[in-house]
């Protein structure tokens, strides 16, 4: 069992997963940062958060997505970034499940691209579940095969 966990190949499998998640989150944050008002409406549509928290969530979440996405792309503090992505995916999955259980007919607001989002469905849930699995894989198995973390580590060793 420990041999499976310590297999070096995980690190190289985690690399494309890391880059893929980075692209997803960078795309996801773009319209949300551009138009926080529209994203706040998306957040409100889920009818989960109290009114006092909707705008704060709509303002801060896209920036967390941006920073986490950049960190994953650059390989900088990969594990904290993967932890953040995993946390956000859990949050999105809970919100989606509640909305689906209530039978709400609405767009997911995942990419907030002005009505371009598909309506939420069990497919959305499966997709987010896959992204959660990928982020957990990166969190557990990424050994920084490529990225700024590795460069910084080398420089520290050299000096």
């Amino acid at each position: 069992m420990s041999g499976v966990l310590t297999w070096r190949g995980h690190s190289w499998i985690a690399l494309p997963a890391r880059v893929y998640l980075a692209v997803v989150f960078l795309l996801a944050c773009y319209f949300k940062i551009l138009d926080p008002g529209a994203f706040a409406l998306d957040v409100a549509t889920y009818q989960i958060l109290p009114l006092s928290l909707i705008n704060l969530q709509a303002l801060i979440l896209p920036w967390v997505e941006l920073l986490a996405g950049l960190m994953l792309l650059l390989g900088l503090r990969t594990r904290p970034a993967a932890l953040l992505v995993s946390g956000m995916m859990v949050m999105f999955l809970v919100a989606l499940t509640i909305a689906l259980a209530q039978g709400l007919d609405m767009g997911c607001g995942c990419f907030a691209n002005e009505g371009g989002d598909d309506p939420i469905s069990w497919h959305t849930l499966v997709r987010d579940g896959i992204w959660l699995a990928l982020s957990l894989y990166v969190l557990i198995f990424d050994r920084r095969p490529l990225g700024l973390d590795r460069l910084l580590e080398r420089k520290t060793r050299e000096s």
Partner: protein
Amino acid sequence: MSPLATVRDAALVVVLSAVLALGVNAVRKDGIPLVATEPYDIFVPCPEPSGEIFELAPGEIDWGDDRELVIDARMPAEFEEWHAAGARNVPFDFLDPVADETIEELVKTRSRRVVVYGDGQNPDTGEELASELSGRGMRNVHFVPGGAPALRGEVAP
């Protein structure tokens, strides 16, 4: 990196994100208030009953069969202007569901087949009503693609 350091760094990123978000929001012209004062005007359609329906070309309707229930989903004024022989008028409203009493009346007819036609627009009121009737328990519900115009021969079925 230890798990504790991972959590600490993640928390720092959240704090940095909050500072950036609030800072950018403060300086941009279209920034939003940190706390909404008015409830958001959200419109989420309630889940509507919908069931299986089938297409039926105008030529396939058996006009002489008493067990065939033909329903016109258009508004009463349009129904008065023209309607298929023997059709009942059950106006379809996108916002209001059909009254329970009306459904009961339709079920009581014990029709072998229910044929609904509407305005033939997109979305077609006939198709919408057929879906609602089927979703509310009626069986063997059909709709006429193209609606009343197709039945009148104005549009090729």
